[in-house]
């Protein structure tokens, strides 16, 4: 079920009413309803994969129960290993098997001894990377005794499958979300209203910005050999806003929906295109994943402690693994490595914690120096997105080549729309977000709240893409 679908527009109010008017009497009923609602939500896409979700939850639930009974460190380690193997095993099988098999065959082909490998003809279960990481965080936190393992079966299953963030995050830490399932939720009008406004803003980013950009991006990427260099460059600017609108829009809808049910999810995006360097960009982009890797990979590897080579190694590992998490393709690995390269000089000069406050704090406009820094950071991020969007490395390099050598004229696109039409919309997005950069989203309470809401609703109605419903990009990860 997509957040921007008609089914969800019906489903959400029904669950909301049942939750606050029928199951509101006790905690068990609230959690049970959320669990059923989440499984229906996921099963709507493909019910067969519900067993995978249930099995993953079951394994981690019993691993948690095991931690409460076992004190021996060796046996605890084995238990954690079992959880990691099961979770990463599923992920590896469904997401990475074909990639490794093909890469293996490619190596033999390069050595002049081609071999045949069998490919698996399976579909990737939606959201597997997200809920796998979420349950892993539970097992690891329990193992480290940072979190008390739960014995509440329903609460744990509801935590793993919580429908607002099940398929595309934010990837919640068990220590933040699970305790919220232990307390009976009491309706908080302020939280719910803010959630509702955040849903509207997320919808704007998805159906107006991302889905409109998607049409231009698809056209340019599908036909880039025929377009000029400037149009090809414009294509990557559009993709930068498509992926931002798509994923941060999803996160906004997820966080807003969770708030309607009395939950507070972690923030996933903090206006990443208002970053002055790449380190700041990564503090603001997909925060739940970046911090997950920081907490469960970077720090266990030693983090920034140790020698220079240690730091460089750890930085490359975290960026490359993060790239690989997005998909089983060399393009994602190069995307990760490129970002690591961007990050390296800032880290070596010890300037990676330089821009911690928001840009242009206490000012309406950024300074000229800040504008230059914003543009440089955006250009670097946008350039890296080429690898993220391309189907393979050959296409990515060919696209870059076309961008450099293809001339400066702007073409009229095949989709019978002029390339410039989307630019004012991107301008509106940036303007709204610039003045809201201290807050979670731009539709905050105040004198101008309703005019702003009315304007955003009008833009959603008049300028949204509805004739071809677009999936969220991050569903495929």
């Amino acid at each position: 079920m997509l957040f921007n679908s008609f089914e969800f527009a019906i489903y959400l109010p029904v669950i909301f009413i049942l939750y606050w008017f029928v199951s509101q009497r006790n905690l068990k009923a609230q959690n049970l309803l959320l669990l059923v609602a989440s499984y229906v939500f996921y099963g709507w896409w493909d019910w067969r994969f519900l067993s995978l979700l249930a099995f993953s939850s079951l394994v981690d639930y019993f691993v948690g129960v095991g931690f409460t009974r076992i004190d021996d460190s060796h046996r605890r380690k084995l238990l954690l290993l079992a959880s990691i193997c099961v979770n990463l095993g599923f992920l590896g099988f469904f997401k990475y098997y074909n990639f490794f098999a093909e890469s293996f065959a490619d190596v033999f082909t390069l050595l002049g001894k081609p071999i045949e490998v069998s490919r698996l003809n399976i579909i990737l279960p939606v959201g597997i990377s997200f809920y796998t990481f979420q349950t892993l965080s539970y097992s690891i936190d329990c193992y480290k005794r940072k979190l008390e393992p739960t014995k509440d079966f329903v609460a744990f299953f509801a935590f793993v499958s919580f429908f607002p963030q099940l398929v595309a995050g934010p990837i919640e830490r068990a220590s933040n979300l699970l305790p919220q399932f232990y307390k009976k939720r009491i309706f908080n009008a302020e939280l719910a209203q803010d959630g509702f406004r955040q849903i509207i803003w997320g919808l704007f980013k998805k159906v107006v910005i991302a889905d409109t950009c998607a049409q231009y991006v698809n056209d340019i990427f599908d036909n880039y050999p025929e377009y000029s260099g400037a149009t090809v460059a414009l294509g990557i600017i559009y993709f930068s806003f498509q992926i931002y609108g798509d994923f941060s829009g999803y996160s906004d809808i997820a966080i807003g929906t969770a708030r309607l049910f009395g939950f507070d999810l972690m923030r996933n995006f903090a206006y990443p295109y208002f970053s002055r360097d790449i380190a700041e960009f990564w503090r603001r982009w997909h925060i739940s994943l970046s911090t997950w890797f920081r907490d469960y990979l970077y720090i266990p590897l030693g983090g920034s402690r140790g020698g220079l080579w240690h730091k460089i190694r750890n930085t490359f590992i975290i960026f490359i693994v993060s790239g690989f998490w997005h998909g089983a393709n060399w393009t994602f690995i190069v995307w990760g490595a490129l970002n690591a390269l961007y990050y390296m000089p800032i880290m070596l000069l010890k300037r990676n914690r330089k821009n911690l406050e928001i840009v242009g704090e206490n000012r309406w406009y950024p300074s000229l120096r800040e504008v230059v820094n914003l543009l440089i950071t955006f250009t670097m991020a946008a350039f890296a997105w080429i690898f993220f969007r391309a189907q393979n490395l050959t296409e990515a390099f060919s696209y870059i080549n076309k961008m450099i050598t293809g001339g400066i004229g702007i073409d009229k696109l095949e989709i019978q729309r002029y390339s410039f039409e989307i630019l004012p919309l991107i301008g509106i997005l940036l303007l709204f977000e610039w003045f809201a950069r201290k807050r979670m989203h731009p539709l905050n309470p105040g004198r101008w709240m309703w005019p702003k809401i009315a304007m955003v609703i009008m833009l959603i109605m008049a300028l949204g893409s509805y004739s071809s419903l677009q999936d969220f990009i991050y569903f495929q990860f």
Partner: protein
Amino acid sequence: MKVFALNIANALVVVIMLAFLLEWAFNYCYYNPKYPRSKISSIKNPEIEETIDYAFIGSSRCINYINELQINESTWLNGHNFGYRACNPFEIKLTALELLKSRNVRRILVQVDKSFDEELPDSMAMVEWIPYLKEPEISGQFASYFDVIGIMKNLPFYRYMKYESQIGFRNVLLSMFGKERTFMRYKVCSSA
């Protein structure tokens, strides 16, 4: 909960008011286009002359193979080519009825494809008629083929959202502030 419900109600009121406002604005643009974006829109445009010597109606073959400008130059007649892509007998009938209603047409020439016995509306060609569904004669023609015609007709702005890529905001904007489309060649003839 009461405050929250009130807020949701406010938002719904905003949505409903905007739907009516946008419906009115889009309808206005489709009935009074400065630069018609479709043949139907050009028929609806009150600026076009009332008497036409002959009119061609048909599919893309009609547009591509019949040069009414050449005919007009040779015959000194005032003719128009109202053919448009994927126009089936259903749309031909609608176009003919519309022409006869709003213009004094001396002769209508119809081109039909091999799908001449196809009575259903074409999913692509019918979209040009969607902005005019409020007219009972037009919605009446569609009613026998579509169950949802009532929703399309009565739910404000729904039809413009459903078919936004063809008749949505961009099309409306271009019909008011864009430039003349090349297929509207009759204008050249009329001014000559």
